[in-house]
């Protein structure tokens, strides 16, 4: 994965990023077909590789709009297998509840994936490795991160499209809070809040930058996210080879201005592309799928002109 490649590259010398938007109205559609064809467009180097899918599994979700939907996770797993991956691991380190098994039962993940066994990694209790945070965007100098993530050949962030009451939005970059292990930092990982949420997001993404993003926006969350918001039907899946570009595009789909989100704005200088001209837009045009997400009052400034 890119931890060893050091993808801190200024925007002006970074090649254009690619983001693909697919309209998908329901989780009952042929997700495997959609994901397989979408991933093929990127010609991903996953043949014989170990792929790690970092889902967003936050907590109990009886109404199905808090976590990355298990149908999307299962389809991604199968799609990467069809693309030749030697092994596809799934994992997360839930931030608020250490009973990951209870969350998995609530999410009904194995109903979609089949028995996972050792192919699921509870990142909260994985063996860890010390990683120096060379970006020093936050006050943190180092983090202990899961070996399973650091050792994967190909790292995929799979967020849900959600607004967030502290960070504005939680997408593929904020999703990486879940790789910070609770067994080291607690439930919640409060040290990241004290170090600054926005800046911690930058440090973590610089240390373990996802190679690819698959964002579940079929049913997202608006308002008081990431847990207590309201369901928001956006009817899209987003795919991207650059977390910054994919999150920026997701913001635009959500009717929000990415440059107004502190961590995304900063990430655009070194971790990926924020600006539309630097992003090769594939699939559906943003305008055809854009639907405004409500935000808590502190984040009114994120809204694009003309949205409520």
């Amino acid at each position, binding site marked *: 994965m890119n931890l060893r490649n050091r993808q801190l590259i200024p925007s002006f010398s970074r090649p254009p990023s690619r983001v693909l938007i697919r309209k998908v109205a329901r989780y009952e559609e042929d997700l495997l077909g959609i994901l397989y064809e979408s991933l093929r467009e990127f010609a991903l180097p996953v043949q014989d590789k170990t792929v790690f899918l970092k889902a967003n599994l936050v907590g109990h979700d009886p109404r199905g709009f808090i976590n990355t939907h298990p149908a999307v996770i299962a389809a991604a797993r199968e799609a990467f297998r069809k693309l030749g991956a030697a092994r596809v691991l799934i994992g997360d380190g839930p931030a608020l*509840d250490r009973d990951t098994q209870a969350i998995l039962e609530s999410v009904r993940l194995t109903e979609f994936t089949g028995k996972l066994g050792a192919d699921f990694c509870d990142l909260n209790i994985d063996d860890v490795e010390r990683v120096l945070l060379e970006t020093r965007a936050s006050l943190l100098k180092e983090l202990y991160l899961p070996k399973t993530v650091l050792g994967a050949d190909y790292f995929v962030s799979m967020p849900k499209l959600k607004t967030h009451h502290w960070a504005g939005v939680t997408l593929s970059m904020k999703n990486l809070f879940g790789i910070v292990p609770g067994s080291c930092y607690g439930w919640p990982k409060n040290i990241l809040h004290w170090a600054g949420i926005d800046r911690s997001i930058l440090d973590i993404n610089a240390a373990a930058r996802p190679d690819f993003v698959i964002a579940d926006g079929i049913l997202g969350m608006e308002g008081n996210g990431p847990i*207590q918001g309201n369901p928001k039907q956006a009817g899209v899946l987003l795919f991207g080879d650059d977390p910054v570009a994919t999150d920026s595009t997701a913001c635009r789909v959500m009717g929000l201005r990415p440059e107004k989100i502190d961590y995304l704005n900063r990430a655009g200088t070194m971790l990926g592309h924020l600006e539309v001209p630097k992003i090769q837009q594939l699939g559906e045009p943003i305008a055809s799928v854009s639907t405004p997400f409500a935000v808590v009052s502190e984040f009114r400034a994120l809204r694009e002109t003309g949205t409520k």
Partner: protein
Amino acid sequence: MNRPVSPHLSNRAAGSPLAGVLGILADAQNSDGGWAFAKGGHSRVEPTCWALLGLAHTGFAQPGMSGGLDFLRSQQLPDGSWPTTNGMSAGGWVTSLGALTLAQFPANEKSVHAALQWLSDDYPRDSSRWQKLLKSLSARKQHAAHNDEFRGWGWTPRTSSWVEPTAFALLAFAAVSAKPAEASAGFSASGPAALPVAPELARQMSDRRPLAIGLLYDRMCSGGGWNCGNPRVYGVDGDSLILPSCWALLALGDTPDHPNRAASLAWLEKSFAAIAGPGSLAVAQITLESYNLPVPLARRPLADFSLADLAGQGTHVAAWAALALNPSRVWPARFSQSSATTRQSQT
């Protein structure tokens, strides 16, 4: 749960419902004496503590127990704290767990006292005067309604108070005054009857307890039980979770009766039948038994989980299952009958 008992265990455990779980723990011990969260991983403080507590008073062989205790003592930092993983230079919430674990075994007074001193000196930053001033000036001050006069403990030093680390610190404080039951056959350590604490440390602990107990009650969710410590955010009630609720209830077991504790016990009893994971199930059972309350029927009894299920969820889950299945456990303590009486009068 039938499984040949580990050679590290005495015959006493063989054939009992406990044997398979103890076998998981015994077989997962590393050569350095400690335990990892998963067999074959690196030894760490938290799983080692849980394994020692789970194996205590079960007939686990003395060399294995001594190796675990040696590993635990070797990980203690010079300031008395324990780090959550090897290499970290600062201690964290596992200091409470380390202290309460060592307090169950003899000849650990020095380590336990150093840990308690560290805990007594460790104040979360969110309730400092400076932070209170900043919060009073912040537009966000009303979004998570906490009473900042209370102070507990954080997961990491100089952060915020949370329910579980506060509960574990209270349990560590209680461990030095708790009186473990007499040792069962096969394990010689009966634990200290009580660890005398220097007057100044005792005073500091005494000062911290009411603040921490007050914090737990302040952070209780509407209707009983606890989550991590945010019962209400942006005007929306949070849901209670099993594990934080159980640790809080265990920490409050030796405190005077309180209607919120009774409400939380009632919430736990009501929630018990829906518990899905074996870890939460085991800890919930232990909690109710500690309050001398009947354990309701589970959706899936603990004994129905396969050993692979338990082992796959980590050493801590196997250890919690061992504690739940062990009628001779000495930790957590059983509380007086009055707690149950209060709960029944409330419901």
